[in-house]
């Protein structure tokens, strides 16, 4: 578990928490959308501050194991990160068109021309990738599970 938690620490400290209302999970369940497409729900003024996530649940969905003391330790740090974004809510966006994305480059498309990747053996070799020391908690399998 020590290795797991230190890895979790590493990830969390570098954690760029991208938040939109669609991903700010709280304890209420999130269903695939059913809203009308005209409104965008990340520039809402209804919430004056963003809710911090239910940390155990967040860790569960991200498959990161946290000990109870780690939950206690990280909760305020994550809360702080969210509050930084909460400050952005103060900006008046009434006269600004919502942007779909933050980038300004145009599209980056590729022609529909096949290219076979050589050396697929290396890709599926069991010692290359899957030897992370612990079996995946999802599948309970060790070693290569690529056919």
């Amino acid at each position: 578990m020590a290795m797991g938690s230190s890895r979790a620490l590493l990830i969390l400290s570098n954690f760029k928490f991208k938040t939109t209302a669609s991903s700010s999970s709280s304890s209420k369940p999130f269903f695939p959308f059913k809203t009308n497409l005209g409104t965008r729900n990340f520039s809402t003024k209804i919430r004056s501050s963003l809710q911090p996530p239910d940390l155990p649940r967040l860790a569960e969905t991200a498959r990161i194991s946290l000990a109870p003391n780690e939950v206690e330790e990280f909760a305020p740090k994550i809360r702080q990160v969210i509050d930084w974004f909460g400050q952005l809510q103060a900006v008046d966006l009434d006269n600004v068109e919502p942007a779909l994305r933050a980038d300004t480059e145009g599209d980056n498309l590729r022609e529909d021309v096949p290219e076979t990747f050589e050396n697929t053996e290396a890709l599926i070799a069991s010692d290359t990738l899957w030897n992370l020391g612990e079996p995946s908690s999802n599948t309970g399998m060790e070693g290569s599970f690529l056919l």
Partner: protein
Amino acid sequence: MTVGRLLSLKVSVFLSSVPVSVHKQTGRILHVRNGVLYCTMKSSQSQTATQEKQQPPKVKVPQHALKKTVDKITRDYEAIIGIETHVQLSTLTKAFCSCPYNYGSQPNTSICPICMGLPGALPVLNSKVIEFAVKLGLALNCKLSLNSKFDRKQYFYPDLPKGYQISQFDIPIATGGYVDLDLPLEFGGGHRKFGITRVHMEEDAGKLLHSGNGAQVDLNRAGVPLLEIVSEPDMRTGIEAAEYAAELQRVVRYLGISNGNMQEGSLRCDVNVSIRPIGQSEFGTKVEIKNLNSFSSINRAIDFEISRQALLLSEGQGDQIVQETRLWEEGAQKTITMRKKEGLSDYRYFPEPDLPEVILTQEYVDSILKSLPELPEMKRRRYENMGLSMQDVLFLANDMNVAEYFDETLSSGADLKLAANWIMGDIAAYMKNEKLSINEIKLTPKELAELIASIKGGTISGKIGKEILFELLAKGGTVKGLIEEKDLVQIVDPVEIGKIIDKVISENPKQLEQYRGGKTKLQGFFAGQVMKLSKGKANPGLLNKILLEKLNAKN
């Protein structure tokens, strides 16, 4: 049967996933097990039905008797049906990498770091995917979003290499469309229009192959482009749903964007069914059904599910209908619960940071609109306006290649109805027997038109026409050539026919006497002999006319 009367029959009805109904007259409980209907009798009196060995008296009730009872119950309810369809696009490469995709390849031979989700690999969108998405959006009469984006749909599963699926969440490429279709005549016919909520682009996951010691992953299919089509909940019956799916198949094949094969998995449908008492505005509980591998499964699964829900509701057991995903079991012909509890899915959608916005220009959209082929609905309306019957219309417009063949035959000058009849009749039968598509038969549309004209113009008889059709289908060649080669020109000269008839009559004096003695049925015998002598070339009408004259003449 009203709900009240049903409840008053003090019969203990066992409810599992098995539909049960009570027969009005006899009070017998009817249920289905392993696809066979059984009827358990309440009283021990012997009935007229057969008994099964030593088992408790059970009667196999014909399907239609059960169906009538179930129909009575379901009549009080309205079914609300929606369908989510995934279409696998027939691009040469995957959505975000240049790996080729071929159905049935050896596992894990068409993979690369991108579709495997290896660290550092970045997706690059295949331009064909946008083109196909726009084609489909336009064909389904949707509004296109000139600006859309990709999002990450995050969940963990062994066949999802990246731990997320690149999809489109809140800004899909197309929204708000519809399909027009005509229900087949054997199901009552009628025109329908079903709404399309949205169409969006996404990628497929890999395949899990289950073996003796667990499951293994084949990533050949991971990253293959899909278009997801979500319908409005406009369908009301199993047959409407099946026809909707069939029309989507027709459209994607006409557009050439997918081979739309349910068996191969290039067209996948998940169905959502709920029912509510007629008149109620509130929707009932929605149940999802998966594992539908054919249009008829869609039809039957929905009808089953409607009956299951109606029976539960009519017996006051509506709370047994839960929002869940059920699997259609083709063998047992019923839906069953998926055992494992899925839990609430929190996909944590957010914009895919590794892909730029998808921007369409109006010019691009217009150029694609111009390039669209004549779509099934337009073809059906055109054929209908030409005067063909609905039955002909539905057959000819179903397969794009058949329609093209038909159109070409017409443009070579063939008569409309005759061309339709030949294609739908003898030619279709030949294709079925030989397992050939219309592109593989040797008869060209031009020659078919020639054949039709030759018969219509009297050059050859209809019978001869059918005979040489077979050779033309199998070996090709020209109609004119065959007629000449085999000397098939019809004899229409009465004098010549008369000569042949005279010969036949003179060679069969006994039959002539019998005929004149009253056995008029022998006319057929004479006609046959004349045909034989003329090698089938005598015009049947003339033959019989002259034959009759000669037979009845007082000689």
